Structures are given as C-alpha cells and as structure tokens.
C-alpha cells in the first residue's frame, strides 16, 4: 500500500516575508522525492513544516488522507539536518536517546542501535565519542539515529553537503535502502544527486513550486523555463 505525505497550498511567512507561497507537493513511500532549488528558495522551510517543527500560516499537510497536526507530523516523521548535531556522550547514547524518549524497551534498544549503525556502515562505533567523529561519520550517525526510530517518513536536509565522496556514497546508499519501506524526502541543490537518487523532483523557486515531475522527465523535458535555466545553472536568484 502506498503511503504518502502531502503539502497542500502551504504558505509560510516570516515577519511579513513570504518564505513559501501556496506550495503543494506530494511524496510517496518506496521512492525518494528530491526538493531542489537555489539557496533561499524555501527547501528547508518546507522540510521543517513537513517535520512538524514549524506550522504553516495557511494550507494543510496531510499524512495519508488525514490532515495532520504538528504532533501527528512529529510522530510520523523524523528529520536529519544538514549540519549534524551530536549530543554529548557516545554514539550509542545518541542513537538510544530517541528510542528512550519513544519508550522503546530497554531490552530492545541495544539491538536497534546495533542494526541502525550497521545500516550506515558504522558497526562497532557504539562506544566512540560522537563529537570526536569526522563530519562524514557524524552525518552517518545522524542518519542512523533517525532510522532507528523506524518512522514512516524520513526528511533529510542536504544529506551530503560538504562531505567527501566516500561518505557521500555510503549515505546515498543508506538512504536508497531506507526508502524501500518509507517515504523519503530530501532537499539538495546538487542536481547530480537529485538525478541519481530520486524518482520525483520538486523544484522550488522563491518560495513557490515551479514544477513537480518524475525525475527522468524533469531533467529531460522541463516544462518550465525556470527549471530549464536552473538545470543549466543559469537561473538568477
């Protein structure tokens, strides 16, 4: 059964400035949806709305067919940030934290931590101090921490920004595997990455959706002139 999260005519203003304007977009399970756009186009704002970390001024967000409250969104979604935030302590503590606050049983936690770390190729890292890891490893821990919760929707903000190719490849592979059983929405301004990873692309420009299209078609035959300029690296912002 296809599970989906949908933003419907969502508007978000900050001090009167429109960050998102009547944005509608859909993401479905078992395929990766990439939100692309130039810096400041509203990608992260949209992701935060989907995560229930912020509320729209207008519009609704639906999970399945139901209008979702912020609590609904937070219980269905988890988010990985562009800058990985590590809690103090060990890698184990970082991943176990989310499990503890979600009342996963003490017996179950070590096993879930272990499999989450294995998922991102960091088996055996449980006792390492999280803040001493490289930025690539920290990003993989952040991904493992989100995956350990086993939420239906995984939101990822610029997953490989500033990472080396080896870590980027591992993260991309982990995200692909994670997407088999859940909705994955990622933001990126790396068009090659969007092309490689996603099945659907949402192009945001100045807070509005220019187009949402299947990835192959988006790159081969963009419907909007702004998308064509964006793909060619010629879009002014």
């Amino acid at each position: 059964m296809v599970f989906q999260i949908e933003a419907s005519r969502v508007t978000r203003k900050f001090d009167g400035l429109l960050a998102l304007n009547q944005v509608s977009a859909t993401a479905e399970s078992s395929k990766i949806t990439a939100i692309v756009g130039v810096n400041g186009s509203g990608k992260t704002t949209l992701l935060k709305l989907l995560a229930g970390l912020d509320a729209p001024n207008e519009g609704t967000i639906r999970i399945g067919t139901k209008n979702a409250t912020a609590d609904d969104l937070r219980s269905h979604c988890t988010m990985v940030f562009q800058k990985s935030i590590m809690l103090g302590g060990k890698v184990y503590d970082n991943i176990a934290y989310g499990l503890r606050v979600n009342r996963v049983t003490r017996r179950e936690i070590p096993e879930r931590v272990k499999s989450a770390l294995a998922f991102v190729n960091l088996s055996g890292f449980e006792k390492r101090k999280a803040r001493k890891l490289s930025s690539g490893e920290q990003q993989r821990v952040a991904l493992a921490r989100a995956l350990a919760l086993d939420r239906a929707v995984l939101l990822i903000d610029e997953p490989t920004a500033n990472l080396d190719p080896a870590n980027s490849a591992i993260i991309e592979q982990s995200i692909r595997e994670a997407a088999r059983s859940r909705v994955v929405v990622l933001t990126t301004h790396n068009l090659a990455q969007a092309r490689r990873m996603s099945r659907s692309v949402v192009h945001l420009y100045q807070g509005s959706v220019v187009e949402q299209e299947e990835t192959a078609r988006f790159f081969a035959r963009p419907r909007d002139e702004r998308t064509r300029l964006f793909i060619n690296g010629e879009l002014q912002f």
Partner: protein
Amino acid sequence: MIGIPTVALGLYLYLLLSKSGPMGYFQLLYTPYAIIVGQCILVTPIIVSFATSALESVDPEVKTLARTLGASGMQTDFVVLREAVWGVALAILAAFNRAFAELGVAMMLGGNIRNVTRLLTTAIALQTAMGEIALSIALSIILLGIVLSLSLVVSLARRTS
C-alpha cells in the same frame, strides 16, 4: 554582583541582622545560619551567571533535534540541561570555592566563635593574628587541598564522561 566585596556584603548583612536592625527579631547574628544566609547571597550571582552562560552555549538546534526524535517539551528542556551539565557543575564548583574560601562574611556574621561559627578561613585569620604561623599554614594547606581536590575530581569526571 559577582565581584561584590565580601566585607561590604558582610557589613550590610550585619546591619540587617543585628539586634537593632530590621531583621534583628530572628536573632541570626553570630549563628551558623547567618553565615549560611550570607554565603547564599554571595554565591547566587555566581551560580546564576555561570549556569546561564552554560545553558546559553548549548547549540539551539539541540532542542530542534530532540523534538524531531520525539521528545516532549520537558524532555527537550532536560536534554539542553544535560548538554550543559558540566557548565552547571563548574558553576556550582566556583560557587562552593568562593563560599568555602571566603572570610569577610563569615567573620562579620559568624563572629568566629569557637565550636560554633569558626571556619577554616576565620581560624587561619585568628591564628595568624595570634602569631601561630605554623598552624595557619597547616590550616591553609587543608583549605587549598580541599579546593584543589574538588576541582581535580570535577575535571577528571568531565574528561572521562
């Protein structure tokens, strides 16, 4: 308030707590309670200032992260406190050291009464005035030993955590 001269604080509290003062009714002067009151007033700004700095230095995104992981409002606040725990511990340690090694308030409010309000610092001052330098040095070594040991314990605990 952090740098308030302890003698000045001791004097004002003395005037407050003395029999003819506004709080003379409680008869606290020259009791351990007077010293406790004075030391609390002395260290509160230190704890508040250091602990606030420690809490403010926690990455604000930690709260956001905790929320995305399913933490409730209280759990989110608690995770910030946990992140600042060593800063708060340092605030408490600094406050303890300030109170423990302080002389003015203890002398003026406690009166340095033997077996009642005599502290290490007031004992050192008294013995020095009496010319018992060797005893003063011995007491000061104990004072320094306690202060340095506590600092060492906190520092080691922080490194191993």
